[in-house]
């Protein structure tokens, strides 16, 4: 066959598969979610994952860092002979939930501020701008540390705040920290949209402000919001790990950040106990970023730095 006119399409294109990075991100996040949900709620369905608290004994004895990575325990065992692989899977649940919770809180509040200031401009915009700018001028790590500690105090002081468990503390804190960047992006997009002719057209037909925001602006903002949500998720999961590393972690089952924090002192004796949670964290954040980039490409969204 002398087929010179049409360039050869790669196997990926012929099978209509997405880009390699996107494919990886989807597969990684998909399998991680399925595994962690099954392990946490239907352990019988995943017999190859040990219960997160069960000890992997060496010759019937509990031994600190008893196994390296291998068939006995895929990612090796930890300080109190627990299976690192099992812990990584169990811990993914809270890691993801805190990230998702923080993103939702940040996005809802940020989008509200962004849409209102982008649409009404004037004084609304100025006040919101001052608020978000001051929020951004405080180092995020410092702000989150102070907030988590402050929430601890408040919880002891007021009984009605008792529901705020550690995961909630982290979600609220990280959510608040991410409000400003989300608000900025949504505001910019709103300002572009409000000048589009279909918004003027809706106005010229007598649509009210609330209707324009709800029916004309918000649906058109969704692509941008989904895109920044993905990128933001990656960043917030990494931020949670950072906080856990600094001692603001959750109780068991530990998130990856907390696992790294526990094992790092013994990194010379047992590198695997630190390396595998790190790898999980790295691959998950990478996946969210890859998917976020792909969405931005698809929706043609120029993103400001989150």
């Amino acid at each position, binding site marked *: 066959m002398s087929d010179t006119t049409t360039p050869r399409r790669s196997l990926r294109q012929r099978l209509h598969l997405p880009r390699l990075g996107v494919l990886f991100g989807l597969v990684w996040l998909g399998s991680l979610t399925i595994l962690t949900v099954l392990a946490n709620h239907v352990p019988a369905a995943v017999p190859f994952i040990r219960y997160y608290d069960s000890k992997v004994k060496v010759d019937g004895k509990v031994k600190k860092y008893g196994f390296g990575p291998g068939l006995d325990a895929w990612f090796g065992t930890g300080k109190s002979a627990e299976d690192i692989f099992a812990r990584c899977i169990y811990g993914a649940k809270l890691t993801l939930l805190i990230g998702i919770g923080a993103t939702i809180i940040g996005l809802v509040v940020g989008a509200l501020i962004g849409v209102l200031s982008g649409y009404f*401009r*004037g004084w609304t915009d100025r006040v919101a701008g001052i608020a978000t700018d001051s929020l951004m001028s405080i180092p995020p790590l410092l702000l989150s540390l102070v907030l988590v500690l402050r929430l601890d105090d408040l919880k002891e002081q007021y009984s009605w705040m008792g529901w705020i468990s550690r995961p909630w503390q982290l979600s609220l804190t990280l959510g608040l920290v991410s409000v400003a960047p989300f608000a900025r992006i949504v505001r910019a997009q709103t300002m572009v949209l409000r000048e*589009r*002719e*279909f918004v*003027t*057209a*809706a*106005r*010229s*037909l*007598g*649509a*009210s402000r609330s*209707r324009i925001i709800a*029916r*004309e602006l918000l*649906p*058109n903002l969704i692509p941008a919001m989904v895109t920044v949500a993905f990128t933001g998720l990656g960043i917030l999961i990494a931020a949670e790990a950072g906080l856990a590393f600094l001692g603001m972690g959750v109780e068991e089952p530990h998130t990856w950040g907390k696992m790294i924090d526990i094992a790092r002192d013994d990194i010379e004796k047992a590198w695997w106990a630190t390396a595998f949670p790190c790898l999980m964290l790295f691959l998950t954040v990478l996946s969210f970023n890859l998917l976020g980039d792909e969405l931005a490409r698809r929706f043609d969204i120029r993103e400001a730095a989150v």
Partner: protein
Amino acid sequence: MSPTTQAAIRDTDAPLLQLTDVTTHFRTPRGLVRAVDGVSFTLERGKSLGIVGESGSGKTILSRSIMGLLPTHGTVRSGSIKYAGREIGNLGRKEMRSVWGREMAMIFQDPMTSLNPLMKIGDQIAEPLRIHLKMNKVDAWATARKLLQDVRIPEPDRRLHQYPHELSGGMRQRVMIAIAMACGPTALFADEPTTALDVTVQAQILDLLGEQRRERNMSIVLVTHDLGVVAGHTDEIAVMYGGKLVEKASTRRLFAAMKMPYTEALLASIPKMSDASHTRLAVIPGRPPDLVNPPKGCRFAARCPYAQEKCIAEEPPLTVTADDPDHSYACWFPVGSPEYHEARARLSDKKNTVEAA
């Protein structure tokens, strides 16, 4: 506005639209931009008016001023805009909302961007019906289907469920017309409705607008830069230059006996079928005047081939012609006056001497 007062407004003898000395200025860092500077005209019910002028002549700002669609920030407005005898120039956003859609509606230049890309055609037509006429969803969609038939869209049932990207430009402009007409407005503003469309589709859209105007007894204000567009489709033509009305007459009268050299130049710039091929297109030399510091005299003087000292020193008022009370113009030496012929003769002499040399 309650339905009864609305009916009363529709029954008054007052002209549908009466503008008196309307000005719209914008505050900018460069200074005050006089986008619309003292425009007055009257539009009767069921009539159509073409507003013609080049870019920056203020024609779009004028139509948006009447609609009240300008940004409130940095805009200075004065003068009176009466709609069916009622002053609407000073109405707030809330009060205007009952006028928008039901009394006045607008069609925009680019049908590609004036429809919400994420809403079905049916929903977009049904929405004003549901807001203003309080229809339920079923009735609104039935009316939307009828409107699509009115604007000659084939297979209306299928189109109702489609999104804007599935429609061609001409089709989308028809949808825009259907949306604008949904609540039966008495005045329709069309801001360059055909500029973004193919020439073949342009005529269809203009015919459709004319047809709907007759059927619904609507008034139409057609804003365009193309004299050819308004020629066969409007009763009257108003020519704007530098934010001012410079000539207004019935369409027939304007083409037969124009007074303003600017109108003459606009008409001369339209290529004619009778011209030999490779005939140079006539252009109007120079640029429109600076609206921050407009010239003292006639605003067209700098580009007018017949301009004299008086034109540069003094601004000509809008005067009515002796033989037609509906024909007014703003020029010291209008087309057909002795000074005009003199200037013309001088010009051709100069041309001849240049050619001889």
